[in-house]
């Protein structure tokens, strides 16, 4: 069971959280202008890296807030967690 550091509540057990996949998926501002392929990229295509992954979790059975996590998908080592609206920067 992963120990996930909620940026608001501190480290909590994995079962308190919901997973939301890759972070920073940008929703096209003018979807009607997006091509079918671009729309499909937004909807379905993901980085899915083996290694460092910036992803979104929600502390569902806690504060209820979404946040970003930088986690290694092989070792599950968590390098960083940050509020979802914090701008990207540094190693994140």
């Amino acid at each position, binding site marked *: 069971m*992963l120990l996930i550091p909620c940026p608001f509540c501190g480290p909590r057990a994995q079962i308190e959280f919901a997973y939301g996949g890759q972070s920073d998926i940008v929703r096209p501002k003018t979807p009607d202008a997006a091509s*079918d392929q671009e729309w499909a990229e937004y909807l379905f295509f993901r980085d*899915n890296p083996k290694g460092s992954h910036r992803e979104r979790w929600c502390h569902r059975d806690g504060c209820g807030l979404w946040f970003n996590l930088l986690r290694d998908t092989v070792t599950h080592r968590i390098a960083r967690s940050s509020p979802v609206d914090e701008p990207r920067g540094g190693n994140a």
Partner: protein
Amino acid sequence: MKQRFSFGALVRGAAGGHRHWQPQWRTPAMKRRYQVIVVGAGGHGLATAYYLAKNHGITDVAVIEKGWLGGGNTGRNTMVVRSNYLFPESTAIYDLALRLYEDLSRDLNYNIMLSQRGIVTLAHSRAELDGMARWATALQVNGIDSEIVDRDGVRRLVPTLKVADDARYPVVGGFLQRRGGIARHDAVAWGYARGADSYGVDIIQNCEVRDLIVRAGRIAGVETAQGVVEADSVALTVAGHSSVLAAKAGFRLPVTSYALQAFVSEPIKPILNTVVLSPVTGFYVSQSDKGELVMGGALDLYNSYAQRGNFPAIEGVLSSAVEMFPFMSRLKLMRHWGGIVDVVPDSSPIIGKSPVQGLYLNCGWGTGGFKAIPAGGFTLAHSIAHDTPHPIAAPFALDRFATGALIDEAGASGIAH
């Protein structure tokens, strides 16, 4: 030509202490160039090589594997074979697989121990039984065997199952595919490996493919731990690692890799004679020929390339086991492990061309890759040989995500959304 396997050969072998058996596959030196390179020596990759040679006469083929052949999901799954899917496109490809499986032991001269003992899918409510009526009918109109069974029918098939009204999920019925069952997973990989090898295919183990060489939008070869190898065509059959290799070729896939866990109990004498699956609890179980109960359930729902899972999923799956099969409570878990599955948003595979010319894909089987091995190899071999998709695989092209023509096996069950 390979030695034939038979009872007679075993008897003859016994006299000589079985010293006459030859390697089931060679350990060849890798050439610098092949007509076709298949990356990944799991079931799908080996089957692709086998059918390239057998059906299309293409034998200048290397299957390159970073570990040991059959050591990925082919050797880690729960051995279930079935073709009870919902949409005609799915039933066509999974039933092609099942039909090939039905003849595979003889075709390969290798006993894959196909045991068509039937698979029962359980309904726990009136609404689910309606859903299964749809499912069973969908199969029937596609020419696949299936029958609705009532509660007593389920009880007769699976006497150890708790069906009572006071169960959290009482069993009200289900549907049965008699041709479903299990097959010995390792034997499928080994049989295809031996078959492909006998046609001259080079199976290169312990040689990681580190990069794909693309020139002017066209595949030119691969860079491996043992150097560069050129090829006219390259096929990726690497399941959970598809995204990693796709990234090397410069494109992304609608694939997420998750850990899926599997569990076996200590061996016991026969007590369960069908495969049982409950879509609501997510639990499935069968008993291997050795006597172990082989169980599975939900994914560990976060991206993972670690071939192991975590405890919440283990607790979830095994409490389903004990809740649904009270007799299992006093049995012991002997072993559990995980594999990396490649899940696609519509839970259907991606077979055929990639954005790079000459680079072919076979991925996205998610939790259902084993049952599809023969069809995955069969249709991919066709795609490579003709540079055009096999008709059965055509609906599973990558462009469906742009057109929206998804084959949504997960969503269509009406449960998961």
